[in-house]
């Protein structure tokens, strides 16, 4: 990447300020009915327009930068609140603002009858702002600002309907898990400032590029840095140890889940890793760690999704498993594949969530798919959108999911060999199976509950974004055709140009590639058919065997966490502090006060009241003193 970087000044901070202004306005003024929503969507759309303008500058400018201002500087830490835009991040920008606007539009009608809309849209805009800060900021510390901002907004949005205690607790759970993840980011920042002297991404890249200085670094610095970043990414993008918050995050309104838990926030982990790819490229052990964690997450999540009854929970688990796919691609050393899947996933997952939202909306907030059924006739538009979504996610030929998943599968095959490829393939099959299971249960056969009979199609304002998204999720795939078919590799061009070179695994000849593609398509079609056969008539009351219970109860992961980590930590800590604070220190204090009283009582024994005993004691005292003086 030696070509001269011509950095172009660009008003990137405007992109951030627009939604921020929207958030502020919504926060202050409570307008009638849906005006708040429209206001928020307008601001989001404005940000979308500006980001398109920046996007167009890209072929010639290799990087857009906006110095911003010095946030704070003390001792060896210098935090610059500046912004920069690399080619691949500009694509992400488009997604954030584009999909964001669509979701805003959808939400205005979805939340039309909610009483505190102003607050909702203020949070939504605030979320978009912090996501943009995360994406755009030049310094890692700026990224961290966006990182935590996004965490807080997800906490506020998940716990939006705070009347029920469940939602508030889900919000806290999300925030806490994110916070644990952010520790990793903090450690990375400390390492960056301690060893690289700066936290700006470009600065770190120079440090790595310059062989002399890189050699001077202690060997563990880069691995620790990479691992720390990965730990933060796990927290944010819900990988194995820290994914528990995502399923519970469904407690929030559906547009929130769509925006946050499908399109933007969850992918931030991957964005950061792609931006810092030159570091990860050199760390092979870290990559293998990432790969295996991702693979296990994908498989585990897919298994859990098989038996879920709540429509949104199914989608949540599918998100976790798709994220597993993306991290698997990163683990396999293919940032382009990962990023391509991020884009495609953003489209079809947002689509799926929004349709689920309209379905639930139509079903008067009934989420249980066992109670749905036969909605094909009742909600034709949502049905079409949901079908497109399932097709895309399952990876039917020529859909966006097909291209991105296939690219990942080939990359995994190249670097991780057959075992990795096989497991990932299994995960892909499971994905298509549970997606079509949910499709058939909700839309085919006959309505199984009272709400199902009276389900009504959502309003136009909700259907339009669905249609746009379904078109997108069908045709986005074409941007990155496997090079056998043509040279239309936009994505790899975008990602490589922003400095994220793929790890050169041994190239696969075209023949094996065709073979892999074939296997993948057959696998997904077969599992889809299998799901069709199983759930055509309606919910099959499968026997409560062990496997089923295990999957239904989410492998008891939450319970394990609580009993082994959360509860004991809290227990030890509280009673420790109780013992030391109340009894230890206070005890000693009260003890010392009590000792005064006791000595007082002791002394009073001598006050017998009789004058003679006093005189006697006095004389005795005199004699003792005299004796001592003489003897001494």
């Amino acid at each position: 990447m030696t070509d001269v970087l011509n950095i172009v000044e660009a008003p990137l901070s405007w992109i951030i300020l627009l939604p921020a202004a929207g958030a502020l306005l919504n926060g202050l003024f409570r307008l009638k009915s849906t005006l708040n929503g429209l206001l928020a969507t307008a601001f989001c759309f404005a940000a979308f327009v500006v980001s398109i303008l920046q996007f167009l500058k890209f072929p010639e400018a290799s990087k857009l930068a906006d110095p911003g201002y010095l946030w704070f500087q003390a001792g060896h830490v210098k935090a610059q609140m500046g912004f920069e835009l690399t080619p691949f991040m500009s694509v992400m920008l488009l997604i954030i603002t584009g999909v964001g606007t669509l979701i805003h539009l959808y939400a205005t009608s979805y939340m039309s009858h909610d009483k505190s809309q102003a607050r909702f849209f203020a949070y939504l805009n605030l979320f978009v702002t912090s996501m943009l800060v995360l994406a755009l900021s030049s310094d890692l510390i700026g990224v961290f600002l966006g990182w935590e901002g996004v965490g807080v907004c997800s906490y506020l949005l998940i716990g939006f309907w705070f009347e029920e205690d469940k939602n508030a607790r889900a919000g806290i759970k999300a925030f806490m898990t994110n916070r644990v993840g952010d520790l990793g980011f903090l450690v990375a920042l400390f390492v960056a400032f301690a060893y690289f002297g700066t936290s700006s991404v470009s600065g770190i890249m120079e440090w790595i590029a310059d062989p002399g200085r890189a050699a001077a670094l202690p060997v563990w610095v880069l691995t620790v840095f990479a691992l720390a970043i990965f730990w933060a990414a796990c927290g944010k993008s819900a990988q194995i140890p820290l994914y528990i918050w995502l399923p519970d995050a469904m407690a929030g309104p559906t547009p929130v889940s769509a925006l946050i838990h499908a399109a933007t926030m969850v992918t931030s982990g991957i964005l950061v890793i792609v931006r810092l790819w030159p570091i990860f490229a050199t760390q092979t052990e870290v990559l293998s760690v990432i790969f295996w964690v991702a693979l296990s997450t994908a498989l585990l999540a897919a298994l859990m999704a098989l038996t879920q009854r709540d429509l949104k929970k199914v989608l949540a688990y599918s998100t976790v498993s798709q994220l597993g796919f993306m991290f698997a691609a990163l683990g396999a050393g293919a940032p382009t594949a990962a990023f391509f899947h991020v884009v495609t996933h953003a489209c079809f997952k947002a689509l799926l969530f929004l349709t689920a939202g309209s379905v639930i909306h139509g079903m008067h907030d009934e989420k249980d798919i066992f109670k749905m059924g036969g909605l094909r006739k009742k909600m034709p538009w949502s049905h079409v959108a949901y079908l497109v979504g399932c097709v895309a996610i399952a990876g039917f030929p020529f859909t966006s999911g097909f291209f991105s998943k296939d690219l990942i599968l080939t990359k995994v095959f190249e670097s991780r060999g057959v075992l990795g490829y096989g497991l990932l393939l299994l995960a892909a099959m499971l994905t298509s199976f549970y997606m079509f299971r949910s499709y058939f249960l909700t839309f085919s056969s006959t309505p199984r509950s009272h709400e199902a009979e009276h389900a009504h199609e959502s309003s136009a304002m909700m259907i339009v974004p669905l249609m746009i998204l379904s078109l997108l999720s069908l045709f986005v795939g074409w941007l990155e055709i496997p090079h056998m078919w043509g040279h239309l590799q936009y994505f790899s061009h975008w990602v490589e140009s922003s400095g994220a070179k793929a790890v050169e695994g041994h190239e696969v000849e075209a023949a094996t590639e065709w073979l892999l593609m074939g296997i993948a398509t057959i696998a997904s079609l077969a599992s889809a058919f299998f799901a069709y056969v199983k759930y055509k008539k309606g919910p099959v009351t499968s026997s409560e065997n062990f496997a089923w219970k295990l999957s239904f109860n989410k492998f008891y992961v939450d319970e394990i966490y609580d009993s082994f980590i959360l509860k004991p930590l809290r227990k030890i800590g509280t009673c420790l502090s109780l013992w030391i604070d109340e009894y230890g220190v206070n005890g000693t204090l009260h003890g010392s006060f009590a000792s005064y009283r006791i000595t007082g009582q002791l002394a009073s024994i001598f006050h017998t009241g009789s004058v003679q005993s006093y005189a006697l004691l006095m004389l005795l005292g005199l004699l003792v003193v005299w004796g001592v003086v003489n003897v001494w």
Partner: protein
Amino acid sequence: MVSILFWPLLSILVLVPFRKQNWAQWVNLLLHLPWVFFLIELIKVTPSGAPFGLMETYGTFPLFKSALVLGADTLNVSLIALTIFLSFSLSFYFLGHSKISQSFLILFQLLNFGTIGSLLAADAFLFYIFWEFMLIPLFFLIGIWGSENRVYAALKFFSMTLAGSLALLAGIFFIVTKTEVQSLAWSELSRNAEMLSAAAPWLGWAFLLAFLVKVPVWPLHTWLPDAHTEAPTGVSVMLAGILLKLGVYGMLRWVLQVFPTLYWNSTDLLFAASVIGIILGSYGALRQTDIKRMIAYSSVAHLGFVVLGAISTNATAQSGAFFQNFAHGLSTGLLFLSFGMIYDRTHSRKLDEYGGLASTNRFLAFTFVFASMASVALPGLPGFVGEFLILSGTFLQKGWWVLLPLMGVVLGAMYTLQLVKGLVFGKVSPLVESHPISLKWNEYVSIFPFLVGLALLGLAPQFLLAWINGSIPVK
């Protein structure tokens, strides 16, 4: 400098004739204006370079080798600014408040006088006098206007701090009698710091003890939860806002710069104490059912961070620590203030009696959430800037030991969110239902500066950081 120091006394004199409550409250507010003016004058003239850049002596105490020496540099002037900021916004809060009588205001001004005095004092004995002087008004303020077992709390607070400062007095006596130090002026002491440290190794600890009790470092902190819960709102804001910082200021000014060698070899012990303080402080907050105690314990944890920064050898953590003073001052101050307003109407501090404040009073809920986010050190708010600097400085110096305080960050989030969930979110509890809270105009005005301060220091703290970095003791 003298004008800013003696202005509170003057305002007491002015306050005396106004027996009626609301008259006294209004006068108290107006008296703050000239004070601010003096502050601005002082800020213009404060040098940011060497410690105690500006020194003025006004006459000497005949019997003792000390003199009335006042010194100013950015370190103490910034804290004075914080005091005046808190006192100014509180005076808005006091308007029309039923419990704030004239004597309360007089004692309050006395407290301000003591605080500013001990900040400006550049002479050990003068510092000690102001240091002790502060306790008296505080004792009465908590003892008289506090809630249920206020006397116990006031007594405990008074005796513990007094015991600590007696060690300080012993140290001063030792210096005066045993060592050939001409005068107790700070410049004199710091000039022959080596001689002093060599003279008596315990001297450092004697000085340090007084400050450790004041900054509640872990083992000596048990007075804080009692004092905070029992103190009336105004006092607990001042107590959390500025008085705890005095301990830190004392440590930096009177121990670090006067006995550097003793200070540095006591740092490992202090590191352990502060880390334990952070963790146990957070757990302490976690187990509380009483809201004010929870906030009090949180300040124990936060000040654990500050001490962590204050004992590190690099400039990052030191300036981070001093900045954290302001961050904590504003965030905990706002927490206490907003809860104080709720408490004034509902008179209950039990967390489980509360719930669903957001649905009744949106603005107060917002301030409370905003303040707790600040205290959780959310980036974009000052707490983060301070804590980040401290932790990165500690990482630079102590390496992987930094993970322990990091745990504190997570625990901090845990108890704060628990507090917020209990108070603001969740179902609307009968108590909140039956006491609709409608804030008066002056309460809005008193909260407003805190919000602006927090937002400003969060996003653009550089103006303050650059100003205080000059006189941070460790370069």
